[in-house]
C-alpha cells in the first residue's frame, strides 16, 4: 500500500466493484487505484449454505432495524457487498423511471440509449440471461400454475449465473461461484488489472483528498490481512464513496467537521421496496429449498397497485421468522417446510424527505423510516392476491402476516376482505423487510440533491458517490443493474474530469 493514490474507492459491492473494474482498465493512463472494504474477504470456498455461519457476512447479521422497528434492512458487509448475497435477479431500469429522473431531477445523460449501451456491456460481462424452464423448481412452476388459473400474466426473470449448481439459497453465499457477483467478476478483474485492495478496512471519516480508515482483524476462515491492523490515513486525488445506502451517508455525517457539505441534503429520500415474504403449503413435497429460487414474476399490479410479486424461498430460520405467530400452530407449519411455496411481495415506495439515514452518538447509521399508507394499501392488496394464487396453485393452507386467522384455508377465499385489512396488518407484529435500500445521497440538479449530475458530492472538490445512494427515487425493479449503470457513468465522469 502506498501513502497516496489517484483514486481510492470505498466499498466493493455493486457500485464500488463496478467502478473499480472500469477505472482499472485505464492503467495505461498511469492511474493508481486503491479499493477499500470494511468486510472480510470470503471466497466461495468459505460459503456453506448454513445460516448460522453465513449470516455473519451481513451488516448486523441481517438484523438492522429502522428506528421505529417496522422494517429490517439487509445489506452485506463482506467483499462483494450485497452482490455476494443477492439472488442475481437482473432488471434494467424501466424507461418510465429514467424519464422521471431526466425530467424531474436533471439526469439528462440517462437516456434509454445510454442506459442500454452500458448495460449491454455489463450484462454480457456478468452473464445475464433467462434461465431455461428445465431449471424451474416446483415453487416456480406452481407460481405460474396459480397465476395462469387466475388469468394473471407472468414473466420470466433474468438472472446472472454461470455454472450454477442450484443449491437453493443464493442469499447466504454461492458455494460454486456460479453467481456472477462483483466478488466473482469485477473485483478479480480489477485485481488482475493491478489495483491495490485492502479488506477489513473500515472507513471512519473523509477529508478533502484524504481517507481515514481502520484495518480490523480478519474473521476466522477468511483471507488473512495483507496489511497490519491499525489506523491509516491515505491521500487521494479522487475519492469514490460506494459503501451502500446505510453506510455512505453515515461516513459523510462522521466527516462533517472536515467537509463543507450541504447538510440538509445528506441521508434524505431513502426508499426501501418494503417487502413481505409469504408462504402457502402444498399437499405434496415440493422441496423448494433446492433448485434456483426465482424464475417468475408478476408486474401486472405494478402501475395500478404499486407492487411486484416474485417467486422466492428462504432457509429455515428466516422462514420461521417470516411466518406469523408462535407456538403450536407455528411449529406445525414449520414441519411442512418441504411442502412450502413462497412469494415475495415487493412494494414501490415514494421518495420522502423524512425517510432518511442519520447517525447515533457513536456515528453508526440509524434509519428513520415511516411506512406510507399507500404502501400499506399495496401490501394488503398483494397479500390477498398471494393467497388467491396459493389456492389456485393447489395449496392446502396459507400463512399470512396481517391475517386475523393464523392459517387460511380455501374456504376463507370469500372472506379475504375481512380477514386481511389495513387494520389487521401490524408492522410491529410483522415487520417489513428490505434488501433494496436506495437513495440517501440523491443525485439531482436541484437543491434536494446531495450529489450533482456528474456524481460529485456537492460542496466537495474530490469526493464522488457511486452506489445505490444516488437513486433520486425508487427504481421500482430489483436495483443492482441500475446501481452498476450509475457507477459506470460516475466512473466515466471521474476519468474525463480528472485524468484526461
Amino acid at each position: 500500500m502506498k501513502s497516496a493514490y489517484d483514486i481510492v474507492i470505498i466499498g466493493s459491492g455493486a457500485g464500488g466493484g463496478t467502478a473499480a473494474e472500469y477505472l482499472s482498465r485505464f492503467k495505461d493512463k498511469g492511474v493508481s487505484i486503491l479499493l477499500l472494504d470494511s468486510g472480510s474477504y470470503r471466497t466461495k470456498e468459505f460459503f456453506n449454505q448454513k445460516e448460522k455461519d453465513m449470516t455473519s457476512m451481513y451488516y448486523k447479521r441481517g438484523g438492522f432495524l429502522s428506528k421505529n422497528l417496522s422494517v429490517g434492512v439487509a445489506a452485506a458487509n463482506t467483499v462483494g457487498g450485497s452482490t455476494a448475497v443477492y439472488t442475481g435477479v437482473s432488471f434494467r431500469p424501466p424507461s418510465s423511471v429514467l424519464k422521471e429522473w431526466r425530467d424531474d431531477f436533471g439526469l439528462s445523460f440517462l437516456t434509454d440509449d445510454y442506459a442500454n449501451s452500458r448495460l449491454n456491456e455489463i450484462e454480457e460481462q456478468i452473464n445475464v440471461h433467462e434461465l431455461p424452464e428445465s431449471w424451474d423448481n416446483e415453487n416456480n412452476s406452481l407460481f405460474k400454475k396459480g397465476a395462469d388459473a387466475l388469468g394473471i400474466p407472468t414473466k420470466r426473470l433474468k438472472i446472472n449465473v454461470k455454472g450454477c449448481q442450484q443449491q437453493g439459497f443464493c442469499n447466504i453465499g454461492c458455494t460454486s461461484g456460479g453467481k456472477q457477483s462483483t466478488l466473482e467478476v469485477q473485483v478479480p478483474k480489477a485485481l488482475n488489472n493491478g489495483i491495490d485492495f485492502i479488506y477489513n478496512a473500515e472507513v471512519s471519516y473523509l477529508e478533502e483528498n484524504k481517507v481515514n480508515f481502520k484495518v480490523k482483524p480478519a474473521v476466522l476462515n477468511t483471507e488473512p490481512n495483507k496489511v497490519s491492523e491499525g489506523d491509516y490515513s491515505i491521500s487521494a486525488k479522487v475519492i469514490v464513496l460506494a459503501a451502500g445506502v446505510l453506510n455512505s451517508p453515515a461516513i459523510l455525517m462522521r466527516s462533517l467537521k472536515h467537509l463543507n457539505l450541504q447538510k440538509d441534503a445528506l441521508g434524505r429520500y431513502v426508499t426501501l421496496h418494503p417487502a413481505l415474504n409469504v408462504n402457502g403449503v402444498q399437499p405434496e413435497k415440493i422441496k423448494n429449498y433446492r433448485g434456483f429460487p426465482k424464475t417468475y414474476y408478476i408486474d401486472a399490479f405494478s402501475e395500478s397497485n404499486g407492487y411486484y410479486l416474485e417467486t422466492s424461498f428462504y432457509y429455515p430460520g428466516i422462514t420461521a421468522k417470516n411466518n406469523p405467530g408462535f407456538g403450536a400452530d407455528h411449529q406445525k407449519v414449520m414441519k411442512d417446510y418441504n411442502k412450502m411455496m413462497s412469494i415475495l411481495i415487493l412494494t414501490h415506495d415514494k421518495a420522502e424527505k423524512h425517510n432518511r439515514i442519520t447517525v447515533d452518538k457513536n456515528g453508526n447509521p440509524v434509519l428513520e423510516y415511516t411506512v406510507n399508507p399507500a404502501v400499506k394499501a399495496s401490501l394488503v392488496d398483494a397479500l390477498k392476491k398471494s393467497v388467491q394464487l396459493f389456492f389456485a396453485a393447489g395449496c392446502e393452507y396459507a400463512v399470512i402476516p396481517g391475517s386475523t386467522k393464523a392459517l387460511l384455508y380455501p374456504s376463507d377465499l370469500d372472506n379475504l376482505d375481512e380477514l386481511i385489512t389495513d387494520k389487521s396488518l401490524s408492522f410491529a407484529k410483522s415487520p417489513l423487510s428490505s434488501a433494496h435500500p436506495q437513495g440517501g445521497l440523491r443525485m439531482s440538479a436541484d437543491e434536494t440533491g446531495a450529489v450533482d449530475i456528474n456524481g460529485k458530492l456537492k460542496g466537495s472538490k474530490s469526493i464522488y458517490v457511486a452506489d445505490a445512494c444516488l437513486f433520486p427515487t425508487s427504481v421500482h425493479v430489483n436495483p443492482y443493474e441500475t446501481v452498476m449503470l450509475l457507477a459506470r457513468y460516475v466512473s466515466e465522469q471521474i476519468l474525463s474530469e480528472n485524468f484526461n
Partner: protein
Amino acid sequence: MDTSFKKNLIAIAEVVLPDIQTDAKLKEDFWNNFSYFFNDLDADSSGKLKLLTGVIAKLSWVYNVKSFNKLNVVSREHYLKKISDFPVSKITAGFTGLRNLIMVSYYSMNNTWDDINYDGPIVQREIK
C-alpha cells in the same frame, strides 16, 4: 449470561417453540445457539432485549399476580399473546424481535432439520 435472563428467556422460548418443553437436550442446544447469536448483537440491541425480557417478567406480576417462571405453559402462552398484542407498539415490536431471534436460533440448528423435513445443505463444509 445472568441466570434470571436465561430463566426468563427459556420460559418464553418454551411457549414460542413447544417442542423444547419436553426435550432437555434440545432445550440446552437451543440455549447455546441463542447465546451464540445474542452475544454477536451490538451492545445496544442486546441491552434492549435483556431489558424487554425483564419487563415481560415484571409485568407478569401485574397481569397474573404471579412470577413469570412460575406460570404453567398454558398461562404463559396466554400472557405472551397479550404481550404480542400490547397497546404500546415498542413492546409489541420488541417482543417480535425477541421471537424472531428465538426462531432463527432454533431453526438454524442442524438437529431441528429432520423434524421440519429439511435435508440440509448439499455442500458439507464446517466453519471452525
